């Protein structure tokens, strides 16, 4: 029965029925025989959003929207150029480092990749980089944002799996640095082979670095404030999201003077609409949760997996493969909402730490979303740079391998995720 329902969901989704409507349609079908089903569905649609931590989603989206429009990107790029511009393939290195820094504000791979594609790719092309390589590194470096605070994916996982959002935020720091390192090494190897230029002739001196750091200080401070605020127990994630909005308004409006009062209505409206796109799926998934519970899907899946093997390492490998493939075809928030109630209990049953599993999940979906032929970030970048998908794919392959290596490291060395949250507990 459940497999038939899942098949129907997939068919509807691939018929371009919106994800929320696909989930609701199947849920309605499943429980329509029950006379009180209608009220149950409506109740679930309402109670699915009655969660204070979920309020953090629109507020962090708003903070990211304000920061993105507030002249932050240019300052961070200038700082990244001072730090790594002297390496071979300097602009590509800037692309990676910038994503690491801006990831602490946007929390979205699409937003990050779009910023790099808009600002850096045209400059990279003028300096002789191929469009495929410049576009691919913009997309690949976008994989850093969703595992750094204020990652919307991690907030969602925390709410759905009842895991500390603060621990998830901190747990993402080491994997994010690992991704940046892996991409940086990959970029360097490709740049040496293709003789891509440096941005600057030599290393920046201390005064240059200090000057650039001061200009981007308030932007760099935001992720630090997020982590400190959460781990010190000063704020809840939702309170922190409201503070982040106020902070970004002050920085963008009064410190950098890049937005005015007239810009605010459009920013708030865009944030409301963007959040609603995700939140309606969460509400629909709350209804779908009835099926997950009635059909005991986590138990069924666990039985299926343990039928093949009882080795947790192999089960994790299988889950990784499944998530990576699904992530290539479906939007990550939707997948998260559908799969977390199923996979989180499964992971717990084989002894995987919930914070560790959250990072594995988000990392898989993120890599999936930037992988051709159907990853959503690929199309965001392609729409901006005009790169052809085959050209993008060829250039992306080494970066994909680097990301998979990091994924395997994160999967099989849990301390990479759990060490920092335990240290700061």
């Amino acid at each position, binding site marked *: 029965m459940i497999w038939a329902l899942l098949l129907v969901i997939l068919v509807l989704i691939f*018929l*371009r029925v919106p994800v929320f409507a696909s989930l609701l349609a199947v849920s309605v079908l499943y429980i329509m025989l029950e006379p009180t089903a209608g*009220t149950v569905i*409506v109740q679930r649609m*309402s109670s699915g959003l009655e969660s204070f931590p979920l*309020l953090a989603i629109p507020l962090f989206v708003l903070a990211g929207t304000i920061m993105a429009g507030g002249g932050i990107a240019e300052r961070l790029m200038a700082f990244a150029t001072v730090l790594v511009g002297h390496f071979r393939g300097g602009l590509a290195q800037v692309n990676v480092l910038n994503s690491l820094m801006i990831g602490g504000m946007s929390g979205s791979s699409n937003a990050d990749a779009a910023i790099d594609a808009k600002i850096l790719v045209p400059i990279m092309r003028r300096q002789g980089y191929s469009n495929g390589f410049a576009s691919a590194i913009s997309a690949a470096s976008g994989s850093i944002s969703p595992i750094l605070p204020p990652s919307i994916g991690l907030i969602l996982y925390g709410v759905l799996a009842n895991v500390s959002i603060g621990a998830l935020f901190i747990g993402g720091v080491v994997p994010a640095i690992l991704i940046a390192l892996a991409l940086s090494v990959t970029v360097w190897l490709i740049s040496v082979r293709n003789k891509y230029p440096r941005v600057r002739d030599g290393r920046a001196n201390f005064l240059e670095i200090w000057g650039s750091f001061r200009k981007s200080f308030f932007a760099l401070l935001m992720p630090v404030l997020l982590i400190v605020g959460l781990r010190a127990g000063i704020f809840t994630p939702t309170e922190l999201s409201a503070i982040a909005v106020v902070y970004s308004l002050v920085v963008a409006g009064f410190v950098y003077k890049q937005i005015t009062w007239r810009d605010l209505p459009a920013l708030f409206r865009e944030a*409301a609409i963007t959040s609603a*796109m995700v*939140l309606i799926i969460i509400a629909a998934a709350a209804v779908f949760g009835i099926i997950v519970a009635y059909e005991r899907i986590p138990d069924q899946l666990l039985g299926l997996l343990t039928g093949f093997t009882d080795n947790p390492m192999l089960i994790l490998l299988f889950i990784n493969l499944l998530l990576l493939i699904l992530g290539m075809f479906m939007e990550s928030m939707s997948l998260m909402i559908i799969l977390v109630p199923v996979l989180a209990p499964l992971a717990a049953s084989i002894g995987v730490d919930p914070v560790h599993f959250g990072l594995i999940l988000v990392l898989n979906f993120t890599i999936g979303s930037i992988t051709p032929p159907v990853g959503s970030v690929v199309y965001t970048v392609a729409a901006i740079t005009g790169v052809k998908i085959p050209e993008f794919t060829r250039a992306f392959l080494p970066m994909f391998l680097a990301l998979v290596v990091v994924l395997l490291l994160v999967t099989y060395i849990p301390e990479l995720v759990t060490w920092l949250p335990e240290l700061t507990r």
Partner: protein
Amino acid sequence: MKSPATRRMPRGVSRSLVFVEEIVPALLLAFIVVAITADVIGRYLFANPLQGAAEISLIAFVWATYLAVAGVSRQGRHIAIDVITATFSPRWQAIADIVAQLIIIGVLGYLVINGLDFFAQGHFTNLVGTGLSRRWLMLAIPVSAILMICYSARDLIVAVRGAISGDFQLTSNVPDDDIRPDNTPKEA
């Protein structure tokens, strides 16, 4: 290029819809920021948190979300996968969209009927802090569903015309200039 259904919408109606589906949610979002920030400031600076701030914010959040969802429908921005349908010819894209819109209308119609019925006759608990009945939270769902049905009906008409003429473009690809004020950013 504008969709035929959008082009015919009277300006007063379209502005009212933008107000309800975009400006009200934006104002509610701003209210949430103020309420939560005031609560934090009250707690740490004056040892006196804003009573009920979390609950009022939650009510504003639910309404903001469901009203903005209708705006998402109007702009054709619901998260959907077009990997397969994008490979279809325009006529077959239109036919697939007819199927999609009929399913959406069916599901939303179900929500409207059951939502209004439950609103009128259901038993609701009160929110702890404000004492407000959850009935008023739940009302956001049928209200939003009614608005979304209107947009699905609009898209259905466009899809039927597209299936007949063989000339079809998805709503999400059509700028709705006549309902979007100049200072609003375009969708991605």
